[in-house]
């Protein structure tokens, strides 16, 4: 089966995130004082052939460790869309 998987990558909490800070300042300038704690990362979507959702997630986790995220500076979250396609 094929699973649609979304990976969300964000700068590791606690590390300086100058992009997030810049966006937060811009939001403030646009009169959105309610916005805070802004972070900018990246999103990756991919199809993964795997027998189960858990196997798809494990596979993408390995991809994150090896390539998609930098283990020194980034954290990631994996979401497997329900309903694998045959």
């Amino acid at each position, binding site marked *: 089966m094929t699973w649609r998987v979304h990976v969300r990558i964000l700068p590791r909490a606690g*590390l*300086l995130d*100058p*992009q997030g800070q810049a966006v937060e300042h811009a939001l403030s300038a646009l009169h959105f004082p309610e916005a805070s704690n802004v972070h900018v990362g990246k999103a990756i979507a991919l199809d993964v052939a795997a027998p189960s959702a858990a196997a798809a997630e494990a596979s993408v986790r390995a991809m994150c460790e090896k*390539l998609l995220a*930098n283990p*020194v*500076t980034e954290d990631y979250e994996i979401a497997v869309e329900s309903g694998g396609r045959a």
Partner: protein
Amino acid sequence: MTRVAVVRFPGSNCEPEACRAVERAGGEAFYVWHRDKSLEGADAVILPGGFSYGDYLRSGAIARMSPVMDAIRAHAAAGAPVLGICNGFQILCEAGLLPGALTRNAGLRYLSRPVDVRIERTTTPFTAEYRPGEVIRIPVGHGEGRFTASDDELDRLESEGQVVLRYADAGGGDYPSNPNGSARAIAAVCNREGNVVGMMPHPERLAEPVLGSDAGHRVFTSLIHHLIAEPSGR
């Protein structure tokens, strides 16, 4: 004649300067394509600056998968000299040959200008001909040069003497020190053994007097004299 391989990735752009700097220091320089699996018996390797693979995903993240990286890994493991400059430094970090990571400059702007750096370690093949604590002015050109590592890793790098260059203020106040916000103002690091060095500034861009300074020249004379004194035997 000592032979230095300069690796070309798609998007490298500082390789002619690197070759010229090696040749001015008395070595023989030649290009190796990133898909090559051999370093053709090189005594040392330089990964030059540029924008390999357009910096897609993260700077250096795709280049470190290139076929030539296995040969570079073996070369480094054998104790032979490896130098990564700018994008080359980013590639070596992504490949795990050097600690830490290079992230977006704190000011978010691409920096292309001279910086002052202090020589923190002279026992590497690339810094032996500088004086400890000497401050030199050489250029940087990067958008992602902010050195980052965990506090524990930074403490370890400091205690084991793996910081090779640090952004410094030479006085005069022309330029603010630490222009990209690097952790502990680190501009260059080496591996535990000291034979693999990565630096964000570009010594090859300021290595002959006609350019107004040859402050970077001794990086390359250090290398050539190191290789003459300690031939790798390969």
